[in-house]
């Protein structure tokens, strides 16, 4: 017997949990972008005194969680669950971060969809009555992702125009059973959609069909229309993926172009910063949500936002074996009212 499910893929949270604080830390390049005012901390050096990019990424997560805890005036022992994930093999950034924090931990892998994924699970855990406070965090690091998925940093290759730039950064959110919002009101969990794209330099096109599927099912399940939202923001579709998503949603009968944006597009000044199709990585939707979206919600300039984090669920091995790239997209409605 399910009480809170509506439609095929959506959960309507009965007692919408409140996001009581967030924190965002970004690397130097992201700190030069148009959203720099929104980030809580900007690194001057993307090794941050660590020996490796991987250690730096782990520290990013750890410090983001601690910062969010401080903002919420909580301590580590108040947190009932830590939901986190990242891009590296065996999600080492998250697990090594969890090693430093004494919190019950669920490690997640959803590639770049992790922010909405962790918020979904965190919010449902609280609404289910299993926790009072949960921490949701994810991270990515340009240099650790580059060496795992692409080429060594000093290799003299050219990046195609459809390729995206992995964000260095981490975003954390503390979700609570009590609080004055913003609230997580709906959770729409995506299905894995594979549109047959094999080009790893065109991740936006690989993920767009998943975003379209999740967004249109969200509208069907909830009865909402694009007009109900102040902002519909995807994770890291970039210019190519955003364009396709807009197109395909129109074919499905939803014109979201008025309120549609993408974190990967918002985070950089693409011409000046030479980031081609846009930002990407788990950290992309995480820092744009924890920085820009959350702070605009608090100000009241945004009241209802649909956050859709998009992920490409391939690995270097599946790519070498000629497999296509499966995409996923998770959506959460974040609103200043409980409705």
């Amino acid at each position, binding site marked *: 017997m399910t009480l809170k499910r509506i439609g095929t893929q959506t959960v309507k949270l009965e007692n919408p949990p409140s996001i009581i604080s967030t924190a965002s830390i970004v690397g130097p390049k992201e700190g030069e972008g148009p959203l720099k005012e929104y980030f809580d901390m900007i690194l001057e050096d993307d090794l941050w005194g660590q*020996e490796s990019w991987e250690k730096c990424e782990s520290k990013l997560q750890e410090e983001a969680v601690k910062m969010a805890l401080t903002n919420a005036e909580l301590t580590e022992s108040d947190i009932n669950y830590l939901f986190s994930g990242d891009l590296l093999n065996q999600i080492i950034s998250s697990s090594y971060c969890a090693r430093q924090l004494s919190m019950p931990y669920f490690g997640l892998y959803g590639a770049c969809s992790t922010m909405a994924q962790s918020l979904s699970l965190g919010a449902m855990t609280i609404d289910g009555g299993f926790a009072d406070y949960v921490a949701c965090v994810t991270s990515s690091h340009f240099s650790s992702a580059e060496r795992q998925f692409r080429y060594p940093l000093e290799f*003299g290759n050219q990046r195609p*125009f459809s390729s995206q730039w992995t964000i260095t950064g981490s975003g954390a959110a503390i979700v609570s059973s009590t609080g004055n919002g913003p609230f997580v009101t709906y959770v729409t969990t995506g299905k894995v959609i594979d549109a047959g*794209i094999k080009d790893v330099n065109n991740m936006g096109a690989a993920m767009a069909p998943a975003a379209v599927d999740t967004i249109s099912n969200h509208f069907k399940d909830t009865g909402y229309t694009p007009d109900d939202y102040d902002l519909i923001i995807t994770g890291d579709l970039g210019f190519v993926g955003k364009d*396709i998503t807009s197109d395909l949603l129109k074919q499905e009968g939803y014109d979201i172009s008025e309120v549609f944006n993408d974190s990967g597009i918002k985070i950089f000044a693409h011409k000046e910063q030479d980031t081609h*199709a846009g930002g990407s990585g788990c950290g992309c939707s995480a820092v744009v949500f924890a920085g820009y979206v959350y702070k605009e919600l608090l100000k009241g300039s945004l009241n209802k936002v649909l956050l859709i984090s998009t992920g490409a669920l391939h690995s270097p091995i599946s790519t070498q074996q000629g497999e*296509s790239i499966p995409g996923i997209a998770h959506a959460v409605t974040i609103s200043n009212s409980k409705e």
Partner: protein
Amino acid sequence: MDRLNKKEYEKYAEKKIPTPTYFKNIFWAFVVGGGICVLGQFIRNWLFSRGLNEKQVAAGTSIMLVFIGAFLTGIGVYDRLGKVAGAGSIVPITGFANSIVSPAMEFKREGYVFGVAARMFTIAGPVLVYGIGSSILVGIIYLLFGGGK
């Protein structure tokens, strides 16, 4: 989304990709690639003037160009060059050096055996395998067609 036709979608997605700046890329590949060859010619002439024979000059030129490629990689210049020049800095032998030095540097943190030494050949390894392999093959064919003594 279930009725998405994969073939049609791939074609459609392909159209959404901004086209490469062909002219600009070709121009810089030509200039930088040609420039590296001029540098090679300069080294060749210099080695000849020092009285080395053809074989020594060929080996010496390779070694010096490889050193230059390795050095520029080490000080972080070669990847910037590659961003502009593309194949202009990949195809010359300096690019071969870059393909060896860049992973060696990158994977130092994984140790000197499984990191530096093992990863050194991730890109250059295939070049040696196919280069040496095909040279042995044509050597044997040459022998069979009476190219030997």
